[in-house]
């Protein structure tokens, strides 16, 4: 407090100059905050692209062979069966939640009372909920009991409930799905597309039985817990080898099996964004550096102009250290004070941008500066301030009282 008063008196006597210097610092921080905000916006946008499905999931989709192998002609369609699911679930090391899926993209007519509409169907295992990140709104998802007893139950998307039931709750009601009655046990929403929500989930084996799929399945999906990128790649390789062996196709055949490693894709984009974020920091810090040089320059002039004052202070008992601290504190105070304004206006502008862009702004959403970034910016400010005072403070401490008092 004592020192602050001393510094304030010094700053007050050089208002304009202090302001001009401060402005360059404020500008630097403003740019840093803006850049980091944009970086966060891009990161958030990307995360949104992935939020539909679990980031740590691997999808195994059968395709069509394109290379002749073991005497088999190319162009053979690979078909998965229940057994493929069982094998993968049993053998893939590091797999966490497994589900098979039967997809009826065209869908079937779903009727409740007098209302009827076409919705797509998916036959799944209970753990599909985690792979697709299905959010339950009411009731429950498909469970093991449903599979065990081949229950005719279904879980419907929110738009389906609204369209068929209006305001009424659908839980416990019977609907006709392509002529087969199913009881609604839950409603859900999904952060993916509209189509993801206009979907009806059925127990995989009930669906196979009801619509004549026998033991065919369309794909197998599983999550990989917190496995590393390398571990996930190893799992993909293991899946490929096992399926190639079982379905008799060449490992070189990249059309026989499509394995989508969501984690790898996420990781790749996240890495690019991480690099970009570092680049933004670099630019921001370089901008601040220009501000540091400005403050340093001003402090040098200040020291020059205050040579006599510093001499007087020394003559009446000021130690070199207290003179150094005076200069450093003054520089830090100027940088932090004006930097705070830059920070404030940067955050303010980001808020405006955030409001101006649409909610579903694809690649760019919610460009904010989080708390830790703000703290980092503040640390940068203090360090910048201290740095800018190094040379001026050293010069001030070398001032000899005799010479200072002789100078007029």
């Amino acid at each position, binding site marked *: *407090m*004592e020192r602050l*008063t*001393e510094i304030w*008196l*010094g700053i*007050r*006597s050089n208002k304009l100059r202090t302001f001009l210097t401060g402005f360059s610092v404020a500008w630097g921080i403003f740019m840093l905050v803006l850049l980091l905000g944009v970086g966060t916006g891009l990161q958030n946008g990307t995360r949104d692209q992935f939020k539909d499905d679990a980031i740590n999931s691997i999808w195994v989709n059968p395709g069509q062979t394109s290379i002749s192998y073991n005497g088999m002609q190319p162009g053979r369609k690979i078909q998965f069966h229940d057994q493929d699911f069982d094998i993968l679930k049993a053998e893939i090391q590091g797999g966490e939640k497994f589900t098979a899926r039967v997809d009826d993209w065209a869908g079937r007519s779903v009727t409740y009372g007098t209302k009827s509409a076409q919705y797509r169907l998916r036959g799944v295992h209970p753990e599909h909920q985690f792979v697709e990140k299905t959010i339950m709104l009411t009731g429950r998802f498909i469970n093991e009991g449903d599979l065990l007893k081949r229950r005719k139950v279904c879980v419907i998307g929110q738009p389906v409930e609204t369209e068929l039931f209006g305001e009424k709750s659908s839980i416990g009601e019977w609907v006709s799905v392509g002529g087969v009655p199913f009881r609604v046990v839950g409603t859900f929403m999904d952060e993916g597309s509209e189509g993801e929500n206009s979907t009806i989930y059925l127990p995989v084996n009930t669906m196979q039985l009801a619509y004549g799929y026998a033991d065919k399945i369309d794909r197998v999906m599983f999550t990989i817990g917190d496995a590393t990128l390398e571990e996930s790649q190893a799992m993909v390789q293991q899946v490929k080898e096992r399926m190639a062996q079982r379905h008799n196709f060449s490992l070189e055949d990249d059309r026989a099996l499509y394995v989508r490693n969501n984690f790898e894709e996420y990781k790749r984009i996240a890495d690019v964004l991480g690099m970009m974020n570092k680049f933004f920091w670099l630019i921001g810090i370089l901008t601040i550096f220009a501000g540091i040089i400005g403050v340093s320059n001003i402090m040098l002039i200040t020291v020059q102009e205050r040579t*006599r*004052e510093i*001499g*007087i*202070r*020394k*003559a*009446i*008992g*000021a*130690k*070199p*250290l*207290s003179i150094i601290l005076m200069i450093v504190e003054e520089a830090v105070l100027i940088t932090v004070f004006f930097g705070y304004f830059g920070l404030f206006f940067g955050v303010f502008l980001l808020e405006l941008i955030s409001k101006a862009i649409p909610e579903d702004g694809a690649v760019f959403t919610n460009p904010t500066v989080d708390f830790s970034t703000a703290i980092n910016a503040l640390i940068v400010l203090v360090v910048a301030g201290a740095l800018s005072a190094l040379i001026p403070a050293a010069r001030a*401490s070398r001032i*000899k*009282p*005799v010479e200072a*008092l002789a100078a*007029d």
Partner: protein
Amino acid sequence: MGQHSLKVLKGINLKIDDGEFVSIMGSSGSGKSTLLNIIGILDTYDKGSYYIDDELIKDLSESRAATLRGQYIGFVFQSFNLISFKNALENVAMPLYYQNVRRRERNAIALDYLDKVGLKDWANHHPSEMSGGQKQRVAIARALINNPKLILADEPTGALDSVTSQEVMNLLKDINKEGRTVIIVTHEHDIAGQTSRVINVKDGLVI
């Protein structure tokens, strides 16, 4: 100063006793300012020795020199050397700031000393609002606030008219009567004449 050694003082043998009122006289270039700076621990010297109260003052660190200055010596300068953006009270209190005395306490002490030099009512005025005589009295109050043993005054009346000069001299005499040693550097004979001992310096020698 630089690499050149400059022989300014060529053999000074001087002893000033506790409570003396001394003036140092000499023309410009005689070395009297250098002598004063050494006495005030503002400057260093190469040969010889200088003692205050039996303590050898030689090759001190800047920090130690600052401590000793704060402890033993009060300075009064020809051009007052007040800090322009501080008011009279803050100027007087400043030496105590460097002795880590708290603000409230040092301001109270400073007000006492301003009262002593007759400027209590001017406490909140800045140097630019004061006359030369008033400024010098503020400077004297500042020199006294540490309760120093020694007051060093470098041409204290050099920038003042004869009436205010006499006021300042009377103040310095009072200070001396309290038992403090006062050393004045001057080139005015009537000022020197008011002290109890006159030391004449010429070409770096005491004559």
